């Protein structure tokens, strides 16, 4: 007698129990603490905050632990949590010019006011595996500058003084930046909304697209005008008080890409900009973001839209890894009803094909005879 397979609740519960077991792993190995994750996997935590769109190191660390180190799964956990949070208001724009800088470099100038500050970078490390880290070697405490001697003006502002670089305004005159969480996407999308999408966009996707612009798919002649990492003050205006109240500091990475531009019918010759800003420390993401931002401005600047990175509907519709992973992985769900429909069709078409072939063969034979 036939016994149908049922995917019952018990099967799901068992699967989740097994997941919990595998997540914990060998019980003789101490469990990770969230402090260990925030302190020692800080860049992974930053990515989860950035693409999860929630600045909370502890929750990002918790998500990474719960996701067994799968960062996209962790990002998803954080996103699904943040969407339930009440919205109290919108912060004032952060002033990255007033950033407490930990790292700041410009590829456009040998030296500049405020100096080149390398900060905690992998750059110029030799990528040799360090076996000493298979232990807990003594590491000297990093030294701190007392204070900056020079103010570190933003490179874009230095160039802007000469009129060489376009002004930092939204050309379409959209004054309110909008909120991608509350507005269904509509194309063409304002630059402010595109930047919001890019900032939480998938690092790998933006990296590949940014890379493709360098290889000629929407070439934009970029120079890393400035990359800066550090803490900025967050403020919110309380209507009852009528002035801005500080909420605290967050760490961000900002990239201002400066792009050579010959001018077009729509804009004079000048340097144009691509912009990147992400939570935490992630200059790969901020740089890729600014390349993509600049590429998507093609239409606004009168350039031909010829490559995928310049196509805002293509980039914005596909940069969210929570959406992408969900839809790709949904192929795991049962589709047997539709498969049955296709099975019936293919059987019919094969029968028709065989019929035609045999008629054709008969005709040939008759013609030969």
């Amino acid at each position, binding site marked *: 007698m036939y016994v149908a397979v049922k*995917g019952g*609740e018990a099967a799901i519960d068992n699967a989740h129990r097994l997941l919990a077991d595998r997540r914990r792993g060998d019980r003789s190995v101490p469990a990770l603490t969230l402090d260990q994750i925030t302190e020692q996997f800080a860049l992974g935590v930053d990515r989860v905050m950035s693409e999860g769109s929630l600045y909370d190191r502890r929750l990002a660390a918790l998500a990474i632990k719960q996701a067994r180190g799968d960062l996209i799964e962790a990002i998803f956990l954080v996103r*699904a949590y*943040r969407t339930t949070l*009440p919205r109290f208001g919108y912060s004032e724009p952060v002033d990255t010019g007033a950033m407490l800088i930990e790292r700041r470099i410009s590829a456009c100038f040998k030296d500049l006011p405020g100096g080149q500050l390398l900060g905690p970078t992998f750059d110029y490390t030799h990528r040799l595996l360090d076996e000493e880290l298979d232990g807990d070697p003594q590491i000297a405490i990093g030294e701190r500058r007392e204070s900056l001697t020079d103010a570190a003006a933003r490179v874009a502002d230095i160039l802007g003084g000469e009129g060489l670089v376009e002004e930092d305004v939204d050309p379409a005159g959209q004054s309110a930046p909008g909120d991608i969480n509350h507005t269904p996407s509509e194309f063409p999308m304002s630059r402010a909304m595109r930047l919001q999408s890019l900032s939480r966009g998938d690092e790998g996707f933006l990296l590949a697209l940014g890379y493709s612009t360098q290889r000629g798919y929407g070439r934009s002649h970029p120079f890393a005008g400035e990359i800066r990492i550090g803490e900025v003050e967050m403020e919110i205006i309380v209507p009852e008080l009528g002035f801005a109240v500080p909420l605290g500091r967050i760490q961000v990475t900002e990239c201002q890409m400066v792009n050579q531009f010959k001018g077009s019918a729509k804009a004079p010759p000048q340097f144009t900009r691509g912009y990147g800003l992400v939570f935490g420390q992630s200059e790969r993401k901020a740089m890729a973001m600014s390349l993509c931002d600049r590429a998507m401005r093609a239409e606004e600047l009168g350039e031909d839209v010829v490559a995928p990175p310049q196509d805002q509907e293509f980039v914005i519709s596909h940069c969210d890894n*929570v959406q992408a*992973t969900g839809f790709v992985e949904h192929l795991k769900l049962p589709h047997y*009803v539709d498969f049955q429909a296709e099975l019936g069709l293919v059987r019919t*078409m094969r029968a028709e094909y065989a019929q035609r072939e045999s008629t054709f063969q008969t005709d040939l034979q008759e013609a030969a005879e």
Partner: protein
Amino acid sequence: MNAMSRNATYNFAYLDEQTKRMIRRAILKAIAIPGYQVPFASREMPMPYGWGTGGVQVTAAILGPDDVLKVIDQGADDTTNAVSIRKFFERVAGIETTTHTAEATIIQTRHRIPEAPLAEGQVLVYQVPIPEPLRFLEPRETETRKMHALEEYGLMHVKLYEDIAKNGHIATTYAYPVKVEGRYVMDPSPTPKFDNPKMHMSAALQLFGAGREKRIYALPPHTEVVSLDFEDHPFEVQRFDRPCALCGAEQVYLDEIVLDDRGGRMFVCSDTDHCETRRAEGHRGELGGELSGEAK
């Protein structure tokens, strides 16, 4: 109980009230413009995009404490994702659930419409992956929106006609496009075209939610829903040349079950409630056994 208390900080039916209001407004406009896809600010849900987040958001926005919810996937109440979504609503809304089509006030579905005709007052909520029927002919939203605005559906007819020219018949078996009240071409979600006629003049309200694509659309009860076709190639549904092996039902959609690796097959109702109800009434097919057993 334990599960409920662990989720005590979430609102009834998970969504916050502001989100519900936004979805409710979209639903009302969707009902007022049958077949038109209303954009809405879809939220992240605690299940992945593509796994029913659109349907879940619609259900969460309309659900009340007196509702009785049924969730099906592939026509079955016991498929893993149906179980998971049903459990979600039991946990976050504490509502009553059922597997009986006739008892449900809200039925959330993926890929099927129940065999038994729905009644006045019932709501059928579809999970939709790609709401745009023109998407595979034109990938750009900016273009397809214009096509709907101008009622410019020639491309869809050309595509279907190319099928006929190449294969002798239309080679679309599921997500078969329909025209609503003579105006909007609409994607019925990936239900087999077998189910298309059930949408026409249904007594139930039909709501469609696409979470990842951020669209909601609707068919009010008693709405004209016509599958696209041609005079010389009228629309036809799939036919099965045998009845359900368990309950003997005819004119229903069947799942093909592979019994062994020597070509042994049986065909049974895809709508598990329909099949169980019929067997409870004493109907038997040729292999009329009992459904039991569980995935481990």
